[in-house]
C-alpha cells in the first residue's frame, strides 16, 4: 500500500497546499500546548486526576478512535482512487470517511450528554476542565473536518479531481489526518493513561 501512496519515480513534494501545512503546524502547536498544560497539571494532581478519569467512558472513546482511524484510511483510499481517475470508488471512500466523521460527532454528543446528566461541567474540577476543553476543542475540529470532507465529496462528484489535479483533494485530506492525529494523542492521554 505504501508503494501505491507515492510513485517511486516521482521526486518528493509536499502533498497539498503549503498554506494548509502552516495551518496544520499552528493547530498542532495549539494542541501541543494544551497537552503539555494537561500533563504538567496532572503531574501535580495525580490522585485527583486518576479518580476523575475513572468516570470517563473509555468504550465510547475507543469506538471514536476506531472511527477516526478508519475515516483517515478511507480518505487515503479516496485520494488514491481519484489519482487513478476512478471517480466512483473515490466518492464511495470519501462518503464512508464522511460517515465515520459524523459517527464520531454523534458518539461524542452521547458522551457529553451522559456527563452533563451527572452534573459535570468545566467548573467541576481541574480534570474535567481539561477533559471538556480538550475534547470540545477537538470536537470543533472534527466539525470543520467533516465540512471539508463534504466539500471534497461534492467536488469529487463534479469531477474536479483526477489524475489531472488532486491538489485541493490532498489539501483537505491533510487537514483531516491532522484531526485524526490530534485525537490519537488525546485519547490515550486523557482517557487511558494512569
Amino acid at each position, binding site marked *: 500500500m505504501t508503494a501505491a501512496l507515492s510513485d517511486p519515480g516521482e521526486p518528493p513534494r509536499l502533498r497539498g*497546499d*503549503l*498554506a494548509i501545512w*502552516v*495551518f496544520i503546524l*499552528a493547530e498542532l*502547536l*495549539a494542541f501541543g*500546548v*494544551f497537552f503539555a*498544560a494537561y500533563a504538567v497539571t496532572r503531574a501535580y494532581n495525580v490522585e485527583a486526576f486518576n479518580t476523575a478519569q475513572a468516570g470517563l467512558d473509555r468504550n465510547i472513546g475507543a469506538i471514536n478512535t476506531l472511527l477516526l482511524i478508519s475515516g483517515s484510511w478511507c480518505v487515503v483510499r479516496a485520494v488514491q482512487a481519484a489519482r487513478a481517475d476512478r471517480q466512483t470508488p473515490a466518492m464511495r471512500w470519501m462518503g464512508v470517511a464522511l460517515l465515520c466523521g459524523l459517527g464520531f460527532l454523534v458518539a461524542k454528543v452521547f458522551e457529553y450528554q451522559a456527563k452533563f446528566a451527572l452534573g459535570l461541567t*468545566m*467548573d467541576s474540577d481541574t480534570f474535567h*476542565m*481539561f477533559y*471538556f*476543553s480538550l475534547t470540545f476543542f477537538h470536537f470543533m475540529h472534527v466539525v470543520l473536518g467533516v465540512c471539508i470532507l463534504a466539500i471534497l465529496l461534492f467536488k469529487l462528484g463534479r469531477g474536479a479531481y483526477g489524475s489531472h489535479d488532486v491538489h485541493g483533494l490532498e489539501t483537505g485530506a491533510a487537514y483531516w489526518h491532522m484531526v485524526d492525529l490530534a485525537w490519537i494523542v488525546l485519547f490515550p492521554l486523557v482517557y487511558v493513561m494512569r
Partner: protein
Amino acid sequence: MKYTSQAVAKPYFIAAMGLFVAQVLFGLIMGLQYVIGDFLFPHIPFNVARMVHTNALIVWLLMGFMGSAYYLVPEEAETELHSPKLALILFWVFLIAAALTVIGYLAVPYATLARITGNDLLPTMGREFLEQPTITKIGIVIVALGFLYNISMTFLKGKKTAITSVLLLGLWGLAIFFLFSFYNPHNLVRDKFYWWWVVHLWVEGVWELILGALLAFVLIKVTGVDREVIEKWLYVIVTLALVTGMIGTGHHYFWIGAPEFWHWWGSIFSALEPVPFFAMTLFAFNMVNRRRREHPNRAATLWALGTGVMAFLGAGVWGFMHTLAPVNYYTHGTQITAAHGHMAFYGAYVMVVITMISYAMPLMRGRAANSNKAQVVEMWGFWLMTVSMVFITLFLTAAGILQVWLQRVSETPMSFMATQDQIALFYWMREVSGVIFLIGLVVYLISFFVKGEEQAA
C-alpha cells in the same frame, strides 16, 4: 494614482498626522506628570491628559484606516469611489466632532462634560478608551456607517480581490464591535465583558485584518510579487490572527469574575497570538527578498518591513510576556502593560498607517516617489521614532519589573505611591526617549516638504 477619487484620502492622512502630533504632545505632558505630579495642574490634570493621549490615538488611527481604505479600495476594485463628496463631508464631520470632543475634555471637568452632553439619557461615558461623550459616539457610528456604505458600494461595483475582502471584513467588524460601547450594564463583571469586546476584539481581532490587508497591498505594489502568493499569505495570517485573537480574549477574563477555566483558555490561546505576527514578519521580508522590481519608494518599503518587526516585538513578544495567568497575577495593570501598549500600538497600527501614507502620499502629489533627499529625511524619522519607541518600551518594562517586585512580590510590599517614587528614574528616561520620539515625528513631517529631483508617477 489611478483614479482621481483616491485623492480624498489626502485630508484624512493630513488630519491623522495632526492628531498624531497632539497625541505625542499630551503623552509628553503625562510623562512629565508621572515625575512632577502638579505639572500644569489644575489646567490639564493627569486623567485629562491621558484621555486626550489615548483618544487622539484611536481617532487618528481610524482616520488613517479610512484614508487608507479610500485610497486602496478604488485601486483594487478598478473603479472610482462611489461618492468622493460623501467621503469629504464625513471627513469634516469626523474632524469637527473630534476637535469638539478634545475641547470638551480640556475645557470642563469630565463630570460636567457628561452632564451637558446628556450622558444620563444613555450612559456610555467613564470607561477607559471609550470616554467619548455619547453624542460623539453616535457621531462616530454615523461617520463609520457612511464610510462603510461608500467603501462597500465601491467594492460591490468593482473587482473583488482578497485584499479588499479582508479589509472590508475588518472595517465592518470594527464598526460592529464599537456598538458594544453603547451598552453599559450596572453589573461590573458584565460591563467588563462588553468593554473588552470593543477594546480587545478591535486591536487583537478585526484591526489585525485591516493591518494585514494594508500591508499586503503595499507589498504587492513595492515588490511586484505575484498577487496569488501575497493573497495566500494574507489568508493564512488573518485566519491565525482571528482564531488566536478571539479566543485569546480570555486573557482579560482572568480577574474580572469570569469562570476559572478562562485562566487556561486565555493563557493558551493568547500565548499563540504571536504566531500570526511572526508570520507577518516572515511574510514582509520574504516578499521583499523575492521582489521583482526596485520600487523608487524605498521609504515605504522600510516602513512595511518595520511594521512586521515592530508588530511582532510589541504585540507578539511584549504581549506574551505578561499574558499567562500566573504571570499576569503579578503584572496586571502595571507598567509592563504600558510598555506592551506603547510598542504594540506603534509597531502594528501607527506603522502600518504610516506605511500607507508613505506609499500613497507621493502618488497623490503626482509622483511615484519622493526625491532621494526627502526619503533620506523620512528614513531618519523612521529610525528616530522606532528606536526611541524601543527605548520607551524598555524603560517602561524596567519600571514595571521593579514595580511588580517592590509592590507585589516583596515580603514587605510597598504602597503604590511609594513604589512610584522608587521607579522615577525610569520615568525620567522614558520622558527623554519621548522627546526624541517627538523629534523623530517632526523630522518625519519635515520630509513632506523636502524638495529635490522627483520621479514622475
